[in-house]
C-alpha cells in the first residue's frame, strides 16, 4: 500500500503513481518546477532517404523497424473521435509481433475503443494512461485495469510530454492525408478532421514517430499540420478513420428546452455583465448547451452590432457562420466538430489551427486560454464552493476525460453550465466526488433554476445589480434540487484501491479516483 498525503485542496492523494513519485497539488500557480524540457534523440538526415520517401510496407513492419518491445509507451491522438479505425489496427499489429505490457497514451479514448478491454485482459496493453471515457472508464472503475489511469487535460498532456513526465517510445499519428516525407494535413482526404494539434507533442517528443494515412499525396502535403521533419516512417493503410463518426455532417441545435434555457441564461449573462463588447473573445464547445450558447450569443452580438476579435473552438458550422458574417475576426480552432468547420479551416485564412501548445500548455511562456474574456464549460458536479468535477459521476464511476476543461478554467470569466439535477442525480453537491477544477477559477455557475456568481467576483455582482437574470446562491440551488430529488443523495461506495489520479495542469496531483464497489457485489 503506497502512501497518501493531503494536498492543498484538502484531498488525499497518493505520493506515487504507477511506481513513480508525484508531487501533490499546491494551489493555483504555486508549483514552480525548475530544470529543462525533455528532448527526442538526435537524428541525422543521413539516416533517412534523401529522396524523402519514408514509406514502410506495412504497419507491422513499421512497428518492427521502430523497435517495438515489451513495456513500451505507444501514443495516439483522438482527432478521429469515435471514428478511429487506426488504433485497432496498431494493436492488432503489435499483437502479431508478440509484445506485452504496452502502455497506451492516447489524448482521449472513445466508445470505439471498447474492444481494447480484451487487450487489457490479455496483457498486450498493461494500462491506459489517459482519459478514460465510457466503457473503458467503467472497466477501470471496477478495479480491473492494471496500473493507474493518469487523467490529464489536453494542455496537461502536452506539458507532461514536454516536461518529461511521460516518455513516448512510439507515436502513431493518424493523418487524413500525408506525403511520403511525413507532412500531415488534417483538412484533406477521406477522413478529414480539421486541425491535428493533439498529435503535436507526440511528434516533437517521441523517440520514434510513425504517420499512418489512407491518402498519400505527392510532396508537399499542405497545409502541413504536422511537419515531416519530425517523422520517422509513413505507412499507407486502406482506411484510418470512419468519416461519419469523425465529424457530424451538420451539428444540430439541441431541442432540449432545459438545455436551451441554460444556454440562454449564459448568453444573457455574458451580454449583461458587459463581457460582450467590441473586440472581446470567447470559447464554447460543441456540447448541447455550449452550441446553443454560441447561437444565442451570436444573435445578441448581431443585435448589438458587437464583433469579437477571436473565438476559440471546437469549430462548428455555427462558429463558421459567425466568422463568415463578420461577427468575429478569427476562429482559433483546436478541433473541428463538423464538415463546415473542416471546410472553413481549409479555405479561410482567418480560421486558424491551434494546438495544446499554443492554447493550453501551462509550462509555456503564457498560453491562449488565459487571454479569453470568457469560456463556457460543462461539469458532472459542482460543489457549493464552486469546485467542479468533470471525470466521475456522483456514483463514483469514471466516465469522462478532462479534455481542455482544466486548461480553459484560466479564462477571465469561467462559466459552468450545468443542470441543477439530471434525472434524479443532483449536480450541485456539498463536496464534489472528484476534484478536477479548484473553485477559485470558476466564476459563474449557470443552471436552469438560476445563476450563481462566485463570491470572489464581487465585480460581477456589482455590474449585474438590478439585472432581470435569476441570480441565486449555489446553496439555494442545491437545496431546491435536493428537495426535488428526494433529499441529499448517498455517497458512492468506494473501495481501497486508487484506480486513477487527476493531474492538475502543472502536473501536481489534484485528486484520486477510487475503485467503485458495484451494486450487487455487496
Amino acid at each position, binding site marked *: 500500500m503506497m502512501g497518501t498525503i493531503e494536498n492543498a485542496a484538502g484531498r488525499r492523494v497518493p505520493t506515487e503513481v504507477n511506481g513513480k513519485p508525484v508531487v501533490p497539488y499546491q494551489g493555483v500557480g504555486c508549483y514552480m518546477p525548475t530544470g529543462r524540457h525533455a528532448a527526442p534523440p538526435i537524428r541525422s538526415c543521413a539516416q533517412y532517404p534523401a529522396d524523402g520517401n519514408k514509406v514502410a510496407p506495412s504497419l507491422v513492419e513499421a512497428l518492427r523497424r521502430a523497435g517495438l518491445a515489451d513495456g513500451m509507451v505507444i501514443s495516439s491522438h483522438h482527432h478521429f473521435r469515435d471514428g478511429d479505425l487506426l488504433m485497432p489496427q496498431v494493436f492488432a499489429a503489435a499483437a502479431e509481433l508478440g509484445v506485452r505490457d504496452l502502455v497506451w497514451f492516447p489524448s482521449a479514448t472513445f466508445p470505439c475503443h471498447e474492444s481494447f478491454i480484451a487487450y487489457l485482459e490479455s496483457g498486450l496493453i498493461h494500462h491506459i494512461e489517459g482519459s478514460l471515457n465510457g466503457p473503458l472508464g467503467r472497466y477501470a472503475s471496477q478495479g480491473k485495469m492494471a496500473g493507474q489511469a493518469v487523467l490529464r487535460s489536453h494542455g496537461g498532456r502536452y506539458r507532461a510530454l514536454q516536461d518529461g513526465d511521460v516518455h513516448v517510445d512510439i507515436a502513431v499519428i493518424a493523418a487524413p492525408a500525408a506525403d511520403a516525407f511525413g507532412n500531415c494535413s488534417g483538412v484533406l482526404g477521406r477522413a478529414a478532421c480539421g486541425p491535428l494539434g493533439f498529435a503535436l507533442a507526440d511528434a516533437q517528443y517521441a523517440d520514434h514517430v510513425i504517420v499512418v494515412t489512407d491518402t498519400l499525396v505527392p510532396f508537399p502535403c499542405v497545409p502541413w499540420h504536422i511537419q515531416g521533419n519530425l517523422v520517422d516512417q509513413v505507412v499507407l493503410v486502406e482506411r484510418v478513420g470512419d468519416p461519419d463518426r469523425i465529424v457530424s455532417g451538420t451539428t444540430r441545435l439541441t431541442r432540449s*428546452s*432545459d438545455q436551451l434555457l441554460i444556454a440562454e441564461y449564459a448568453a444573457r449573462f455574458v451580454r449583461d455583465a458587459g463581457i460582450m463588447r467590441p473586440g472581446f473573445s470567447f470559447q464554447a464547445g460543441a456540447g448541447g448547451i455550449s452550441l446553443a450558447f454560441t447561437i444565442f450569443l451570436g444573435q445578441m452580438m448581431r443585435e448589438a452590432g458587437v464583433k469579437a476579435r477571436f473565438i476559440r473552438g471546437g469549430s462548428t458550422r455555427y462558429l463558421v457562420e459567425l466568422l463568415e458574417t463578420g461577427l468575429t475576426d478569427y476562429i482559433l480552432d483546436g478541433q473541428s466538430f463538423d464538415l463546415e468547420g473542416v471546410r472553413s479551416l481549409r479555405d479561410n485564412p482567418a480560421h486558424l489551427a491551434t494546438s495544446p501548445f499554443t492554447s493550453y500548455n501551462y509550462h509555456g511562456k503564457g498560453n491562449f486560454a488565459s487571454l479569453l474574456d470568457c469560456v463556457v464549460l460543462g461539469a458532472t458536479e459542482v460543489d457549493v464552493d464552486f469546485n467542479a468535477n468533470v471525470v466521475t459521476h456522483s456514483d463514483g464511476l469514471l466516465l469522462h476525460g478532462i479534455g481542455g476543461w482544466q486548461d480553459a478554467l484560466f479564462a477571465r470569466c469561467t462559466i459552468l453550465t450545468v443542470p441543477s439535477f439530471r434525472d*434524479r442525480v443532483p449536480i450541485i453537491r456539498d463536496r464534489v466526488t472528484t476534484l478536477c477544477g479548484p473553485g477559485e477559477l470558476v466564476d459563474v455557475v449557470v443552471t436552469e433554476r438560476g445563476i450563481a456568481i462566485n463570491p470572489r467576483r464581487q465585480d460581477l455582482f456589482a455590474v449585474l445589480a438590478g439585472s432581470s437574470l435569476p441570480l441565486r446562491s449555489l446553496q439555494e440551488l442545491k437545496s431546491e434540487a435536493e428537495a426535488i*430529488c428526494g*433529499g441529499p443523495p*448517498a455517497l*458512492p461506495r468506494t473501495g481501497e484501491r486508487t484506480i486513477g489520479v487527476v493531474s492538475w495542469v502543472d502536473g501536481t496531483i489534484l485528486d484520486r479516483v477510487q475503485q467503485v464497489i458495484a*451494486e450487487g457485489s455487496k
Partner: protein
Amino acid sequence: MQMTASAGVRDPGARSDCWVEVSQAPDLPQHRVTSKVAALYGDAIHALIGSTLEALAAADLSATVEDRGALPFTLMARLEAAVRRLRPDTSRPALPPLNPAAQRVTQRDRLRRTRLYLPGNAPKFFINAGLHRPDAIILDLEDSVPPAEKDAAAILVRNALRAVDFYGAEVTVRVNSLPAGLAEIAMLAPHGVQAFLLPKVEDPDEVIAADRLLAEMAESGQAPETIYLIPIIETARGALQAWPIASASPRVVALAIGLEDYTRDIGAQRTPEGRESLWARSQVINAARAAGVQPISSVYSDVDDVAGLAAWAEAERKLGFDGVGCIHPRQVRVVHQVFTPSAAEVEQARRIVDAFAVAQATGLGVVAVDGKMVDAPVVERARRTLRLWELSRP
C-alpha cells in the same frame, strides 16, 4: 384471480420514470429494485416502496421496480397505479406531501397568453415546465394519453399537482370528455388544480355538470371555492353553441378552440392561413367577449418553425384572441413577445389615456391625439394595452 399487475414505462431509454410490478407475495413480501440511481437513492427507494404500499393498505404485496430516475412522486404514482390495477377496490390513495414551495394563486382575468400542454403520463416533462414561464400549464389526460393509461395518468397528475412547483403558472388539467371527465374532476379537485379544461364541449349542460360537481365539493370542504373552467370548442356543434357554453357558469374564465379536431369535424383541411376555421374562431372570440371571458386559440404544431409560430400568433392576436396553446417550451417566449404590447404601442396608449384624462378634467368629451379623434372605444383599447403591458412585465 389475477396475481400480478404492472404500471409505468419499461423502455430502457426512458428517463425520469419507472416500471413497477406488484404481486401477491407467497409468504413475506420482498421488493426488488434496479435503478440507475441505486448508488445515490437505493435506500430511499426501498423506504418509499414500503411506505407507499402501507398507505395503500397493500403491505402484503411484493414490488419489482425498474427505475430510470423517477422522482418520488412518480414512483409513488406508478406503485399506486399497479396496486389499483391488481386491486380495483383499493380505497385510500398514497399521497405525496404537498410541496410547500409551490405557489398556487390565480385570478379570473390573469394573463393566459400561453398555456403549455404536458402529456399527463410523461413525468419527465413536468418538473421543469414552469421554468419556461408559461402563463398556464395544462396537464393533459385527454388526447396525449392512450386509453389504457388513463388511470395511471390521472394518479400521476394528482401526485404532480401536489408535489411539483410550476413556478407561478396557472395549473390546469385537461380532463377527458364527460362523463369520464367528471370522475377525474372529483379525483383531482382537492389537490391544487386551478382550472379544468373541458374538451369537445358541445352543450352548456356539460359545463353546468362540472360546475355543480365543483360547487358540491367546495360545499363539503373537499375542494377550494375557486376552481375555474375552460371549455374547448372542437366540433361544429360546439361552435354553434359557443355563446351558451361560454356563459353557462361563472367558473368559466376562458373559451378555447381546438383546430385539429374542429377542422376534421367539419370535413376541412387545416391550412396555414386557416380560412377553413375563420368562422369558428370568430364565433369563439365573439362568444367569449360577450360572456366576458378570454378567447384562446389553438396550438401551432411545427415546433421548429419559430418564424411561422410568430406570424401565426400575431394573426391570432389581431383576430381578437388573448392567447394560444403551446406544445413545446420553446414556443412560450415567442408567443409572449407577440402578445406583449411593443414599446411604441405602450407609449401611444399612454398618450391617449393621458390626453383623455386631461380632456375629461377640462370638460371636453372628445380629444385628438396625433390628429386622430380619441373617443371611448379608443381609450378603452389603450387602457387594455396598458393593463396587458403591466401584467406582462417580468
